[in-house]
């Protein structure tokens, strides 16, 4: 085992594999920065280039690219409030709020450091979990996966606003997200639901234009209203100074970083949930780490824990998602499904062979994640001063550029003008939600989880009738969901009692 581990490292460090990894990192760096250009799409675009490569070179290229996309996606999310990737939207809530307070450097430092720690956790999980993961994954059937989706939604809906009324709004937003997820062709009966008789809506609402509109348009409007730069009147020298403060924040909140990294890994290895879920679950957990309701009010206003949680989860999920992909040939998400295609193109069959005959190749994947993240984080730190300076650029110079990126980012998801229209509609919805004090995070999670939850609910009912409600893991998850919903009320009651 140790031999294979070291052999995996040596394979990645071969000059050809290393050069391909650098090329992948370069592509992934820019793909992450640009809104709308997704990591999965780019993986698919790059797949034809691997035909003539050796397996280690091909995976160094593909995985090197894929494992840095989320890291650089955080940069766009924090600096401009525009999600660089669908998987980096949660970090906007606190990261961009920090940038507007003149703490872009600190937010980026925290995001990069937590991303790096998250990537290491994911890679370690991949290395350690291979022999023990099989029974764990196999205990999760459709009922458990449905309940996991419900727990995720309960987390974010109950924790993203304060008080009973805030919780109603959280669940309203989450319910709206679930409802919107039903737009499109129903997977069981083939009925076109809520498509307004348009072909575009048959495939459902695409996540990218929805996210870009929901988060970027309100920020653009606010930037125009303020008439200043993103960092407002914060003194120019201060912005990038906090970088190491951000890194220290990760170590100050070490256990939160580790827990969110583990959440990301777990979501990653659970087939079908995907990266967009991991970040919101981690955000919900970070919110839960606030000890009082007063402390929780700081989330969304620039609490560094709201950056650290999603940052760690976003990168750790990659290692987690590789586990079922390699061990069982069951991809954890869209990107892993494309990577699985890469396995077959190269003549490798995921399964027992990858854990025996091709073990060094499997460990080379672990090393690729680690080395690619080290290189990206170092490159980002070197460029941080220039990147954070962008928050001091006057708003009237940024607005047209960001608008161009937002519209192109939306358009590129399906090459349809309707995507831009969807962005504008969700931009208006996002703006009104912000004005009314409704949380946007549950809406996004509902939209992401809707289709998954429906599929798992249907399979559970079809296969077990209502007996699935009595399965032990389902009961445990149900108790967790109820606990999560009651948690803010219990916390408020304890706080009231403590204050007499």
């Amino acid at each position, binding site marked *: 085992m140790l031999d294979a581990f070291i052999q995996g490292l040596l394979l990645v460090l071969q000059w050809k594999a290393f050069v391909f990894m650098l090329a992948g990192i370069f592509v992934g760096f820019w793909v992450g920065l640009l809104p709308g250009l997704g990591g999965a799409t780019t993986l698919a675009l790059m797949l034809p280039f691997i035909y003539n490569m050796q397996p280690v070179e091909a995976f160094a290229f593909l995985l090197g690219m894929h494992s840095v996309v989320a890291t650089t996606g955080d940069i766009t999310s924090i600096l401009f409030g525009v999600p660089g990737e669908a998987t980096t939207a949660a970090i906007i809530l606190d990261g961009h*709020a920090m940038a507007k307070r003149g703490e872009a450097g600190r937010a980026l430092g925290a995001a990069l450091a937590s991303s790096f720690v998250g990537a290491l956790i994911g890679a370690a999980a991949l290395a350690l979990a291979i022999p023990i993961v099989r029974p764990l994954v196999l205990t999760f059937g459709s009922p458990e996966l449905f309940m996991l989706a419900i727990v995720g939604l309960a987390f974010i809906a109950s924790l*993203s606003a304060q008080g009973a*009324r805030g919780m109603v*709004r959280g669940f309203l937003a989450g319910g*709206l997200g679930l409802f919107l997820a039903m737009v499109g062709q129903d997977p069981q*009966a083939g009925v076109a639901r809520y498509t307004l008789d348009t072909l575009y809506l048959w495939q459902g609402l695409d996540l990218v234009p929805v996210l870009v509109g929901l988060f970027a348009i309100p920020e653009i*409007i606010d930037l125009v209203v303020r*008439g200043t730069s993103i960092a407002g009147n914060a003194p120019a020298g201060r912005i990038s100074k906090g970088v190491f403060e951000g890194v220290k924040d990760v170590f100050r909140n070490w256990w939160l970083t580790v827990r969110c990294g583990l959440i990301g890994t777990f979501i990653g290895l659970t087939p079908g949930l995907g990266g967009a879920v991991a970040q919101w679950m981690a955000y919900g957990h970070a919110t839960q780490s606030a000890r009082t309701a007063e402390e929780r009010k700081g989330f969304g206003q620039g609490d560094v824990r709201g950056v650290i949680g999603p940052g760690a989860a976003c990168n750790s999920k990659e290692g987690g998602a590789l586990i079922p992909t390699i061990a069982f040939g069951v991809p954890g998400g869209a990107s892993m499904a494309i990577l699985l295609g890469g396995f077959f193109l190269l003549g490798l069959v995921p399964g027992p062979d990858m854990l025996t005959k091709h073990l060094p190749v499997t460990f080379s994947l672990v090393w690729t994640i680690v080395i690619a993240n080290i290189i990206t984080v170092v490159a980002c730190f070197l460029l941080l001063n220039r990147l954070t300076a962008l928050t001091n650029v006057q708003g009237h110079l940024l607005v047209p550029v960001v608008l161009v990126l937002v519209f192109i980012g939306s358009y590129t998801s399906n090459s349809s003008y309707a995507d831009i229209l969807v962005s*504008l509609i969700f931009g208006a919805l996002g703006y009104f939600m912000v004005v009314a004090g*409704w949380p946007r995070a549950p809406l996004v999670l509902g939209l992401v989880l809707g289709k998954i939850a429906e599929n798992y609910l249907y399979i559970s009912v079809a296969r077990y009738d209502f007996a699935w409600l009595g399965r032990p893991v389902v009961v445990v998850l149900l108790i967790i969901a109820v606990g999560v919903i009651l948690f803010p009320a219990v916390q408020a009651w304890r706080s009231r009692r403590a204050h007499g």
Partner: protein
Amino acid sequence: MANRTSLGLAIVIMLLSAHGIYSAHEWPLKAKLFPLVIAIPLFFLAAAEALWVIFGKSPTASASDFKLSEDQPAEVARRRTLLATGWAIGFFVLILLLGFPIAVAAMVFAYLTVQGKEGWIFSVVFTAAVWFFFYGLFELLLHMHFPDGWLFGGFGGF
């Protein structure tokens, strides 16, 4: 303002979910199970929020989310919000009419000169830089296809 907007959102969600429930009745059980499971509680939650706004006395709940800046007078904020909305919609209309390549240049230049009050030389140079970035990356490097605008006879893109 927050309460009125919340009431508006709640009413829109009530209408949406009512439409969702009504439409679902025609579908087979497989297709309507989940929509009904979601839309019925959603309707009642939205109704609860609407009643809360109309009759409730509790202060507005704050969300763990981004807050709009409040350092401008309400009238200025409203005017600038409408202006920003106008620019975004105007850009979309430009894209439809002229296609992406021309609309990007036209929008950036117009924004800089009209809204940003920048000089002509700076605006031309800045616009050219943005346009070459757009063209180099999306057209030359990524080979993305941007349809012609409707004014040039290409009614595609939707």
